[in-house]
């Protein structure tokens, strides 16, 4: 990890490639690209110490625009590839960029198992609730009833919830944030990087072409403060345009209370990102009845897969000297003269 001296050395531009991004004008992927580069500058490690692995999708074109190492792989499989890379090169900062189709549809199983394993990698899921690259089919996060190319009569499936799924699968770090929150996004990315273990960052990303305005209900500037809640460890769960609402614990359920901004009641919950029942409740909040949480929702310490593998290798070495000659001649041998 980096020292403070290094931390100040880099600029976002140091993490740019010479290739010109090819997303549609207006696509929020641009904002995320910028945020990742800014976060990397803050992290303070040189570009060669980062690798970005992606699947297939608009979002997955990401590595081409990074000045780091990059691997644009196949649809749905960036996670095992990133895991293999991390096992091979434990010092590397390994980032995964995936989409709601790449990561939750075809790649859902790898996500589930990657989160169980907890290799020290950082997953960025760009959720535009649509298939961008293939031109507008529904994705697992698309709202029920959505009209689109493959569902001209409306989708009939309940949407999946990437954040809830990550928590269920035992992710040790889960954050959720909109691409429109530029500063917060950078912060979350830095926190995600700093977390040892798999960090899962669910990013709401507007697809300007095929699903424009998908998140306006809670990200549109004029109404967002009443429809978002910023969650932060050890901070009270307060939200609202005037900071006049908060979450309190009812009988086994969260409830919203209103108050005067200056008089936050004691009953308002102080968030604890390590308290699994609270984490569940926050992530289970249904919009629009409840606000959409933004920020680091879960963070717990947990041994990493890559460490465990290398520890087993090291401990095997101390138990058994790796002597190939001896290994091969183990078991019953006999001489022919």
């Amino acid at each position, binding site marked *: 990890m980096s020292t403070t001296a290094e931390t100040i050395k880099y600029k976002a531009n140091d993490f740019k490639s010479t290739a010109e991004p090819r997303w549609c004008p207006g696509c929020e992927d641009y904002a995320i690209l910028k945020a990742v580069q800014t976060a990397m500058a803050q992290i303070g490690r040189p570009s060669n110490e980062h690798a970005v692995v992606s699947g297939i999708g608009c979002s997955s074109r990401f590595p081409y625009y990074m000045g780091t190492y990059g691997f644009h792989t196949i649809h749905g499989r960036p996670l*095992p590839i990133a895991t293999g890379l991390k096992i091979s090169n434990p010092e590397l900062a390994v980032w995964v960029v995936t989409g709601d189709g790449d990561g939750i549809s075809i790649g859902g199983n790898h996500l589930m198992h990657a989160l169980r394993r907890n290799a020290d990698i950082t997953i960025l899921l760009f959720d535009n609730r649509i298939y961008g690259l293939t031109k507008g089919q529904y994705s697992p996060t698309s709202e029920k009833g959505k009209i689109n190319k493959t569902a001209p009569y409306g989708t009939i499936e309940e949407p999946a919830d990437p954040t809830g799924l990550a928590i269920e699968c035992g992710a040790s770090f889960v954050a959720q944030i909109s691409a429109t929150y530029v500063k917060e996004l950078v912060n979350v990315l830095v926190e995600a990087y700093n977390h040892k273990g798999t960090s899962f960052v669910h990013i709401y990303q507007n697809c300007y072409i095929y699903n424009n305005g998908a998140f306006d209900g809670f990200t549109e500037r004029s109404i967002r403060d009443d429809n978002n809640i910023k969650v932060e460890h050890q901070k009270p769960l307060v939200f609202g345009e005037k900071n006049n609402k908060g979450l309190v614990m009812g009988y086994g359920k969260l409830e919203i209370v209103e108050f005067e901004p200056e008089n936050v009641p004691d009953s308002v919950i102080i968030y604890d990102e390590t308290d699994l029942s609270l984490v569940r409740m926050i992530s289970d909040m249904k919009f629009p009845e409840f606000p959409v949480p933004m920020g680091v929702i879960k963070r717990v310490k947990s041994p990493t897969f890559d460490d465990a593998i290398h520890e087993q290798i090291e401990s*095997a070495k101390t138990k058994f000297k790796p002597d190939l000659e001896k290994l091969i001649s183990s078991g019953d041998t006999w001489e022919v003269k």
Partner: protein
Amino acid sequence: MAVEKQLEELEMVTVKFAGDSGDGIQITGDQFGNTTAIAGNDFSTFPDFPSEIRAPLGTTYGVSSYQIQFASKDIYTPGDTPDVLVCFNPAALKVNMGTVNKGGIIVVNEDEFVEKNLKKAGFESNPLDPNDTTLQDFRVHKIPITTLTLKALEDMKDFGHADKLRCKNFLALGVVSWLFQRPLEPIEKFLKKKFGKKPPILEANTRVLHAGYNMCDTMEIFPIMYKIPPAKLEPGTYRNINGALATSYGLLAAAEKIELPIVYAGYPITPASEVLHTLAALKQFDVAAIQTEDEIAAVTMALGASYGGSLGITGSSGPGIALKIEAINLAVMTELPLIIFNFMRSGISTGMPTKTEQGDLAMALFGRPSDSHLIVLAPESASDCFWISIEAVRLATKYMTPVMVLSEGFLINASEPWKLPDLDTIPEMKASFRTDPKDYLPYKRNKDTLARDWVRIGTKGLEHTIGGLEKINETGEISQDPENHDLMTRIRAEKVERVQNDIPDLEVLGDKDADLLLVGWGSSIGSMRASAEVIAKSGKKVAIINLRYLNPFPKNLEEILRSYKKVAVVELNLGQLNMIIRSKFMIDTSFLGRVTGQPISVVEMVDFINNELDLLKEH
């Protein structure tokens, strides 16, 4: 085995043990193999078991067996048909009696031949009945193995009945050891090692082993005993090896030579799992052996490791290999050194998972979207798996390309004596990672091999992005330029072709100056070699080549093919290599292909050869 001539000394014998999955057949076979090794014979084994874990007792589909051929000369197959069959129950007899050589010995556990078991096995009457003619062509020896086992352990009061019964395979082993005058010490040693911490079990098994042996000595059950003199093997230290171990050891040896850690990612599947198990227990050799959530994760995790700069390896069998195809094409496109083991099993879909076949050659060569080329190798024997592993690592890393090894279920489980290799003879190999940023281009190629540079991800100044989209030669920038795609497709093909310059010429085996040339690969080579010996004995000639390199072919293949009057291809499929040879060289081959889930039998192959030779004479 000329039993009817009552010879004391034999050149080669095939023995088969058969019984319920729970009867300890595989251990019995293994131990007999060990004593055979120590007696200095050459041998070859064929363990064969049902796909059920513990099929219900006494059923024919639950029969497990272990066949071993051993000889005072070089041996290439586990034998077609047993000279001696040891049956632990009626079902084992039912399934196997048809295969025993006429005049052969059948030893049965008489105790099991009761109404219920006979019915389960599908016998209408008791074949052991004096009046029954079922077994009239054989020399049947009825031994009440169960009774004798219990008898031998009668005084071990604290040792449970079920535990006692579990020892009966060692009584049979004692009997067979006597029949072939095998020393009991190696078996005792094994028992000590295995049960050293459980004295009653050790004691019981050792006792019944001796009981079986001594009984034969005393009771003259067999009118005669046989001696198979030691084989004239090359001098050296030997051990018994099967394909799973040999494959794993080969990988370790290669990794040590090239000084890279191994990341072997696999998802369990019969028969590939064995290698994953072996490597998982050898972590001290810098091996990360990882069980993934499925085969796609396995191949991609291995590829991620190759990308990072480790030896990324994966292995599976038919259904699992099918799932890896998309990712293999990514490896071909990104030109990374991925190694894929395909431990072929029998049949399409789930098929016959514990049986063997060579059905995936066409898939290895053509089973990916678009024109996609990789190196294909095939070991010919259990011990050759060691060398093939090494060659796979050498070629994958040197040519920056995936290598598929077509191994077989049969080779994984089969065992044979193996002269321990001199590790210094392992070919030199080096992973020359690029470190110099000057003029680095991701798809710039070595002039000879056409390989692009391998980069350890993390290296300063070499940052770049690769991926599955078509890219411009040298620069690696993505591009949809028509002519560039045509060029790149041809370069990827050419790169694999260049491997021809790096692999040994084929040697003709058997009779070089024959008219008929047999072409084969993998485990069929064993049957071909054995058949060639039979043919030679009858004064005729047949030549053999073994295609360990299936893509590209060795350079001198064409010359060899064209120097014979007739070429015949032999394989355990309906004609996959055959198709390629015909199309490539325009040679009107003959073909012998069988898909029975078992190695091709020497008898069948000898018939085929004789027939081909007759046809040649006619013309």
